[in-house]
């Protein structure tokens, strides 16, 4: 609606009317249509391709069914066309609503967070913000701006850049009218309203800069490179070629030339469209000053445009087309249509257009000479011209230096981060160590308790251990009758029973051979009777072989072992307490438990 009512300042090579003949402007990017007709055209095309694809599929299916003979070649062609169309369809619908709609909140957060440019905008408008702080005005401004930003974020992948531009321009208009008509803004002076309008534009555009400047779904970048290359080719063009009167010998004039070049180069680093525009304004004002020095009077458009072309050629600003497009699309159109900024910006667009379409004729020179210069065969003799030629390279170098500086800063940052990480890792290690140590101190591993465990392995019954030797009296009567040596033997037997096996200290658990021995013994003791029978038959063999044979016979004993193990898992709830509270366990140990322990060791 907006674009049809107020003509915007869209500049392009082909500024022709819409192909549809609707009376509005067409655009090369819209295939010669105006925005409205192009959308209709796109829609029509889309539905057509869709129809075609479906038709084709249907055709193929029916032809297959009827087994109509189609030559292989024909089939191939058909398939190719179909594939192409499918591809086209895919291509067209690529940026349709498939994109995530949820992500914009995070995106907004990401864009707002740590945005120094945004902070700068806020700082620059501190007075204004303070003035409206905590009033309904502030709330309303915030609300309007937020809904606009969200709308852009939601549509950024779905809509074309021209449509985003339209949304933006529409927002500016609506907001301006709101300032004018809404009761909320009744107490505010026109000057403050102006400032508010400017602030809203500045803030929103700075925030959305990453999304709207040279977006990947346009060919802005291509055009940037093309114009940059073109200007580089034209670096031999002098002021004389352009018929602009620049007093080269005056140092003041030269100084002003350099200043205006710098001003123009600054445009790329500015964010908000009006900031970019003011770079253009500064540049042009300096050109006028320069011309005044050169001409000896106020310059008019006849002198100004050639001079501006000269400056653009010598500056070769970075991303020139992207910047121009960004201003055209997102700068408040009322600013671009009128006012000094609009005038200078239009001249800049003209200069760029002139450079793009420049021929030998427009420089009043011979075709042959022109080509010689363009191909680089000839270079200008004038030293200042050469100096200006170097100017661009110098600026490029400056850019590179800043890039390198940034990279250096990043590397040092990474280095410090790495060192930090290293320190943290060491610290972590230390902390871990001390923590483990404190835990160890708090809960010492009492190994002495587990001493009973191996002891248990040895004795079948723990109570038999505590029993007074009741068997001895049975032996006694015989010994009384017999000699004393037997008595001695009896005492030694008692000693054997009472003395706990010294071999079974904890260390033996870990790596001592004695454990292995016990293990071997356990194995044999565990193995069912049939192994025992084996034992009997192979009595004369060495112990080593014995062990081997028992191992060989293990398969037949695994069944029983597994059963044991089964029991172990069933009673598993008791088991985990073993390592910590072996002392308690020893009190209510049963034979069953003992067996389970042994099987436990087997399985581990």
């Amino acid at each position, binding site marked *: 609606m907006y674009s049809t009512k107020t003509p915007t300042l869209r500049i392009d090579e082909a500024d022709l009317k819409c192909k549809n003949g609707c009376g509005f402007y067409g655009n090369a990017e819209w295939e010669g249509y105006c925005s409205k007709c192009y959308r209709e055209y796109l829609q029509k095309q889309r539905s057509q391709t869709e129809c075609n694809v479906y038709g084709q599929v249907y055709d193929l299916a029916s032809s297959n069914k009827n087994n109509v003979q189609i030559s292989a070649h024909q089939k191939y062609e058909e398939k190719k066309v179909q594939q192409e169309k499918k591809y086209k369809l895919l291509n067209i619908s690529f940026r349709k609503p498939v994109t995530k709609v949820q992500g914009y909140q995070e995106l907004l957060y990401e864009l707002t967070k740590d945005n120094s440019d945004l902070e700068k905008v806020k700082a620059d408008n501190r007075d204004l913000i303070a003035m409206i702080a905590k009033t309904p005005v502030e709330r309303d401004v915030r609300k309007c701006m937020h809904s606009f930003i969200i709308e852009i974020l939601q549509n950024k992948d779905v809509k074309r850049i021209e449509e985003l531009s339209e949304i933006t321009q529409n927002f500016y208009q609506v907001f301006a009218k709101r300032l004018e008509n809404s009761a909320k803004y009744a107490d505010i002076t026109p000057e403050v309203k102006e400032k508010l309008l400017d602030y809203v534009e500045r803030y929103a555009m700075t925030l959305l800069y990453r999304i709207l400047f040279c977006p990947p779904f346009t060919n802005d970048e291509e055009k940037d490179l093309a114009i940059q290359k073109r200007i580089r080719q034209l670096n031999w063009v002098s002021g004389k070629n352009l018929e602009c009167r620049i007093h080269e010998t005056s140092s003041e004039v030269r100084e002003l030339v350099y200043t205006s070049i710098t001003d123009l180069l600054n445009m790329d680093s500015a964010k908000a469209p009006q900031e970019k525009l003011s770079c253009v304004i500064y540049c042009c004002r300096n050109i006028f000053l320069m011309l005044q020095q050169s001409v000896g009077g106020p*310059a*008019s*458009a006849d002198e100004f445009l050639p001079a501006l072309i000269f400056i653009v050629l010598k500056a070769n600003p970075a991303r020139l087309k992207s910047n121009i497009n960004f201003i055209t699309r997102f700068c408040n159109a009322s600013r671009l249509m009128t*006012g000094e900024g609009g*005038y200078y910006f239009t001249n800049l667009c003209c200069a760029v257009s002139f450079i793009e379409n420049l021929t030998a004729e427009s420089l009043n020179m011979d075709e042959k000479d022109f080509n010689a210069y363009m191909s680089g065969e000839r270079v200008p003799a004038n030293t200042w011209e050469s100096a200006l030629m170097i100017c661009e390279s110098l600026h490029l170098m400056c850019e590179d230096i800043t890039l390198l500086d940034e990279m250096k800063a990043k590397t040092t940052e990474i280095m410090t981060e790495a060192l930090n990480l290293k320190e943290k890792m060491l610290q972590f290690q230390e902390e871990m160590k001390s923590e483990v140590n404190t835990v160890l101190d708090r809960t010492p591993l009492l190994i002495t308790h587990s001493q009973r465990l191996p002891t248990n392995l040895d004795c079948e019954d723990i109570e038999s251990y505590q029993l007074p030797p009741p068997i001895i009296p049975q032996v006694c009567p015989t010994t009384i009758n017999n000699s004393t040596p037997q008595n001695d033997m009896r005492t030694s037997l008692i000693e054997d029973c009472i003395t706990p096996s010294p071999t079974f200290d904890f260390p033996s658990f870990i790596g001592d051979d004695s454990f292995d021995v016990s293990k071997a013994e356990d194995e044999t003791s565990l193995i069912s009777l049939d192994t025992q029978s084996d034992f009997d038959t192979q009595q004369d063999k060495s112990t080593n072989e014995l062990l081997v044979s028992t191992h060989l016979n293990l398969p037949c004993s695994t069944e029983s072992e597994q059963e044991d193990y089964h029991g172990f898992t069933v009673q598993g709830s008791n088991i985990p307490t073993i390592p910590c509270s072996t002392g308690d366990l020893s009190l209510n140990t049963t034979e069953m438990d003992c067996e389970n322990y042994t099987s436990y060791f087997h399985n581990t």
Partner: protein
Amino acid sequence: MNRVDLKVVLLGNAAVGKTSLVERFVNERFNESLSYQNTIGAAFAAKQMQVNGKRLIMGIWDTAGSEKYDAMSRIYYRGAKAAIICYDIIKSNTFQRAKFWIRELRTVEEGCKIYICATKNDILKHGAVPSPDINVVETYAAGIQAKFFITSSKTGENVAELFNEIAQDFMSDPNNVQKVEEVIDISNESKGTYCCQ
């Protein structure tokens, strides 16, 4: 908004007196030796005007007259509500060029009103003969529905009248008034969808 911006483009050959015309209108002066020392540039000028009690800022855009910039001149017209096409009252070649611009404007910028301006009227007093004849230009202007003014920047004759006429025409044009109203419509309608979600 109380303020309306109006863009006026100046077209015409070099040295027909465009800059002088603006200078006369904006600063009310004329300097034959081309030394308007106080102004930096005379390419763009803005002047505040009062029409029917409404404040209006007229932005006057001077253009480079050289033929090599013809291809870009349409960039200048864009959004202009009025164009002053100047020609030197005694130089018929400048009038031929004026006709070229008129054709361009008619095809490219329909909403732009055309004002033909014959400059340097004062020199006729010194015995110069207008070329082409004033009658020819008048007929031509009537044929294309353009207004015709004969001015002199040196004496100031008809200069203010020309610009006042432009401002009056702009304000009386229902299209421009309508535009303002429509914008209000948009804001009313979209208040619901836009700002009070």
